[in-house]
């Protein structure tokens, strides 16, 4: 028993540290991008187009991960793309979480007409096809970082609201809530003091998942050219550009893809790891 528990702890710990490590690296790279990146990510050099990564024959060691068809340095573009990916993940993830979780908590704990209003609103909201909705939104207010963040918040708050509502409802039926009410605690105060701490682990998991999703959504929108202006390097934009020359220069597509994959995986594993660590029952 004790051994099994220790094993789970250790594995959860490893998962947590690996994902934290990768995300920390991204943060550092994003903050220090101008100093870390070996080249200017926008600088074109048609004479050194489609250079392979360093270990392949014919590579130029100055371009570690090769260059794209316009001769721009792939590594530098990935590094600058990190800035946008992280900004979108953090800002839209947090906003989505705050809006969705608040509404879900209110609906799940207050029940009654509050719940009816919020739940019906969620149902109606979810009936819109999300991708179409975001493309429409961006077409209307124009592409840019702000539009992407807004699109993600507008689409995804329902995910938080739904899950948090269900959990708040389950917690609200517990005897400890009744005890708090008997003791004279008001509804709102009961919600914050008794319910919220018990819903928090779920919110944390959802938040980190949402950050991963935000990174993907940003990449998708870049892929269909609805994100930032095409000059700014984004992972999705790089994947999109690399697709056209996949047979001549696979590295233009593959490296941003790997970065994206590791980032999304890290966000989801971070959530799971944090949950295991901070849930008092599992700890």
């Amino acid at each position, binding site marked *: 028993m004790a051994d099994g528990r220790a094993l789970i702890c250790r594995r959860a710990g490893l998962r947590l540290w690996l994902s934290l490590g990768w995300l920390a690296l991204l943060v550092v790279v994003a903050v220090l991008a101008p100093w870390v990146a070996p080249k200017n990510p926008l600088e074109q050099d048609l004479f050194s187009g489609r250079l392979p990564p360093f270990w392949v024959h014919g590579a130029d060691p100055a371009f570690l991960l090769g260059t794209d068809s316009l001769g721009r340095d792939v590594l530098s573009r990935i590094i600058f793309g990190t800035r946008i990916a992280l900004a979108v993940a953090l800002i839209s993830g947090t906003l989505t979480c705050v809006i969705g979780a608040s509404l879900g908590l209110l609906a799940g704990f207050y029940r009654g007409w509050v719940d009816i209003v919020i739940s019906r609103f969620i149902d109606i909201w979810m009936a819109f096809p999300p991708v179409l909705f975001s493309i429409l939104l961006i077409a209307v207010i124009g592409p840019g970082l702000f539009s992407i963040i807004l699109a993600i918040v507008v689409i995804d708050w329902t995910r938080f609201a739904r899950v948090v509502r269900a959990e708040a409802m389950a917690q609200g039926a*517990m005897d400890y809530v009744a*005890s708090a009410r008997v003791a004279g605690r008001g509804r709102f105060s009961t919600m914050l003091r008794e319910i919220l701490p018990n819903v928090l682990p779920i919110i944390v998991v959802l938040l980190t998942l949402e950050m991963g999703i935000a990174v993907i959504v940003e990449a998708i929108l870049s892929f269909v050219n609805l994100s930032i202006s095409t000059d700014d390097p984004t992972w999705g934009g790089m994947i999109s550009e690399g697709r056209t020359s996949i047979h001549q220069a696979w590295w233009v597509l593959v490296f941003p893809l790997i970065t994206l994959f590791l980032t999304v995986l890290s966000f989801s594993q971070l959530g799971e790891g944090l949950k295991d660590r901070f849930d008092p029952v599992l700890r």
Partner: protein
Amino acid sequence: MSFLEVRDLSVRLKGGGPLLRNVSLTVAAGEVRGLVGESGAGKSMIGKAILGILPRSVEISSGAIVLDGTDLLTLPPAMRRQRVGATCALIPQDPLTALNPSRRIGPQITDRLVDILGWKRAEAEARARALLHEVQIADPDRVLRQYPHELSGGMRQRILIASAFAAEPRLIVADEPTTALDVTVQKQILKLIAGLQARHGTALLFVTHDLGVVSKVCQSLSVLYSGKVVEDTDVARFFAGPAHPYSAALLAATPKYTDPTAGLNPVPEAVIAAVRAEVENG
């Protein structure tokens, strides 16, 4: 004068049938009243109505709940909650869900004293420690820092009892406080509640389906069938000979540990039919 007087209280499902039918009962200051009946008779519903924690799906249709001279049902909700919070407490049925799993024991006992009754934190902590000592928890300082899941069911019920007595309430509703515990622990917990009740002079409304428990703890009792009080008597008289045929059958149905060959005597069908007719017509 009695501290709590429930007069002709009726509770029904919203848009549905009655759950309590003109229930009247009194609890004098310092008195222990048992509230017995089979599952679904409405025992817990009475306690919840008094404390103002009825489920959303039911409503009070008529009657009065007079607590210390004031009818709670005429008060606005905030006043009512304040009044109940200052004078009443609950010992819940299931110790496993009655403590907040994500908070330490200490704050769960003291918060109420500090936030709602305006105690100083140090005072509240001293009080919590003293009470845990009183419910025979060996190492109060350690327990106060622990999470509920680190403690056994019996320990948690002790903590809930301590917490109920923390603010020196004048009335405690104990909603089947021993049902979720195993028999060996039940006895200790009962002793504990009875001891604390006697020392603190708290009135107790003891909801249970166990007549054995009633005989040990209570002074008076109300027998409930299908939301109606069929007998209201004191314990000595009840065990000498219940007045109502349903009560008599209920008492006869209690298993006798002293005579294992006696078998079980379920309440006879005829008695059930009679009491049902009586409840539904009266």
